[in-house]
């Protein structure tokens, strides 16, 4: 009998190329996703060394961060961004890497297109020069973000030098109530364990509330594992996973599908496997959540009060005071009713079809508040097409929101889509750091339902009152 293993341990063991004492292990990478921002210096490194991409067929590129989301028929006005995009195209051509660029029908945020094309599969190791690579863990893959030096390493060798992480179980019991989404679940977790509560560990999400989530919601949860400081987050695959994957362009088919399914069904944490840490959350008790500060752990239930510096331990007092001053938010007051000038619905956290459906359920038959600029940015060309086809885009346009072309957009504000200085945005993205959405921007993170409710109200509002 082998020892009981966690899902993470199993994936780790399956990908060990070389393991020697006193050295990090050499781990094989099954899928390497590439985008324009973190790859140019890596390709340049290959050229300097005279190396090729070892496995171009395990490497996939797209353009998402720097690309404008307005009219795609126009040339890109920002010359620096245009240069970076051109460079990626050239690198993909020179090194034989498949590129799903704008107009291909498959372009989109790297963490949206990987799953949607069926590239991301259970049991794989997936990396990308991007911290939200944890998204792919929703499929029972070991997926994590890497820096540009590591991008070069994977391009050159298809491997990484890694130390084994610790295991942390996050069990969410019960079931999420109406109006409460995967985004609220993950914000509630981060508020509980803190922005470094996952440090040094890989999170495995378990429990009835997690099992009940569809794949898109599971991706939302895994996506923000990095905001708790975790190396990765994952969910063991099940029938929900397999149904999602079946028939996708790069998913196995025919006999290969049956074989894959047999293998995928073994990807579980054994009974009795031990975790280094565990946290349990009551899913029934989670409320719609919203952040009020400048890190994702500074979040409260939408009906709650913003904490006061005197409520928190002395060590956190100064940070909270600074965060509230930056945000222009008063302590000890309800967050409901706080004025909002911008709403952003999109990103790799909440830019998939189910997210747009949720936002549209609030905006249908309603108007965006006149003082609110509202951007709806689909996560991919595929999501955009589907949203057009089922009438969601019309709902957004009729309500007075801007319906854009796919990309990261206002999540990172590299492409010209910015929150103006001093403005407050309710955003479905994943980071509320100072200036994340543009210099001086103030970000409140929330679910698509809560964001849409804010768009209609012009202030922070409880989405359940719009049901």
């Amino acid at each position: 009998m082998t020892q009981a293993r966690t899902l993470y341990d199993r994936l780790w063991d399956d990908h060990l190329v070389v393991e020697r004492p006193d050295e990090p292990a050499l781990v094989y990478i099954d899928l390497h996703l590439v985008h324009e921002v973190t790859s140019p210096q890596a390709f340049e490194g290959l050229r300097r060394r005279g190396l090729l991409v070892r496995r171009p067929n395990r490497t996939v590129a797209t353009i998402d961060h720097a690309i404008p989301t307005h009219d795609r028929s126009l040339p890109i006005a920002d010359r620096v961004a245009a240069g970076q995009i051109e460079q990626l195209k050239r690198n993909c051509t020179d090194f034989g890497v498949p590129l799903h660029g704008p107009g291909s029908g498959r372009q989109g945020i790297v963490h949206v297109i990987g799953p949607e094309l069926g590239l991301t599969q259970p049991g794989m190791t997936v990396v990308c020069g991007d911290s939200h690579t944890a998204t792919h863990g929703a499929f029972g893959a070991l997926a994590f973000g890497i820096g540009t030096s590591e991008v070069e390493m994977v391009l050159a060798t298809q491997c990484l030098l890694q130390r084994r992480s610790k295991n942390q179980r996050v069990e969410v019991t019960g079931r999420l109530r109406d109006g409460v989404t995967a985004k609220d679940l993950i914000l509630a977790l981060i508020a509980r364990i803190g922005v470094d509560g996952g440090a040094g560990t890989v999170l495995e999400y378990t429990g009835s509330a997690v099992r009940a989530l569809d794949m898109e919601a599971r991706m939302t949860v895994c996506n923000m594992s990095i905001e708790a400081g975790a190396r990765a987050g994952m969910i063991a695959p099940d029938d929900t996973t397999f149904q999602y994957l079946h028939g996708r362009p790069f998913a196995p088919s025919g006999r290969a599908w049956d074989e894959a399914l047999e293998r995928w069904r073994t990807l579980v944490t054994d009974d009795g496997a031990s975790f280094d840490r565990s946290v349990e959350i009551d899913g029934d008790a989670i409320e719609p959540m919203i952040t009020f500060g400048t890190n994702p752990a500074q979040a409260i239930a939408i009906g709650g009060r913003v904490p006061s510096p005197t409520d928190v331990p002395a060590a956190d007092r100064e940070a909270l005071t600074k965060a509230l001053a930056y945000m222009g938010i008063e302590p000890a007051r309800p967050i409901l009713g706080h004025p909002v000038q911008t709403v952003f619905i999109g990103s790799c956290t909440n830019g998939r079809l189910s997210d747009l459906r949720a936002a549209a359920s609030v905006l249908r038959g309603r108007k965006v508040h006149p003082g609110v600029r509202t951007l709806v940015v689909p996560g991919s060309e595929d999501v955009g097409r589907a949203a057009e086809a089922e009438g969601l885009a019309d709902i957004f346009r009729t309500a007075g929101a801007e319906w854009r072309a796919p990309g990261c957009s206002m999540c990172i504000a590299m492409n010209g889509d910015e929150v103006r200085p001093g403005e407050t945005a309710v955003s479905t993205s994943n980071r509320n750091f100072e200036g994340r959405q543009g210099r001086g921007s103030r970000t409140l993170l929330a679910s698509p339902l809560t964001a849409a409710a804010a768009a209609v109200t012009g202030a922070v509002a409880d989405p359940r009152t719009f049901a």
Partner: protein
Amino acid sequence: MTPFIAFESVYARLLRSHIDTDQIIPARFLKTTSREGLGRHAFADWRYEEGGQLRPDFPLHHPSARGATVLLAGENFGCGSSREHAPWALLEMGFRAVIAPSFGDIFRQNALKNGLLPIAVDAGVHAALADAPPDATVGVDLGVIRLPDGQRAFYPIDPFWKACLAGGIDEIEYVLRQAEAIADFEQGAR
């Protein structure tokens, strides 16, 4: 990479917790295809006024921080994104080490790969550095620092990365030498 050589320096203090990579190098400067030219944009939103003038109250502009090659920061330094532009920018600003109670995971890796030492110290050591007079210096070696009062404090460093830094070993070269094992793995189970 050039082999690491121990050094001593005054240090700059930026004693905030959770300084994320968006502060170290804001995203609008990531459109470059080069590693160079990022230093002047490090901490841009804290360092410059809207119009581009230096903010005199920014701690790294304090006269005592002049010439500092070590940065003393708060816990969880470098949390957030995977952008390697963060260590590139810090290196170009002149820093060779960052001392903090803890680091963001990807930042720590990225820093090591560029020869920027991430030095995690306990609360006592951190306080000793934070409370020392402005002209105090710190000595930096692999696995140990010398505090202003002359005491030595050890810090954890992975023996493998330590050897790489000490020998100036290129990791990619190192892994390329294991091409046979990689090919065997590819031939195997899959």
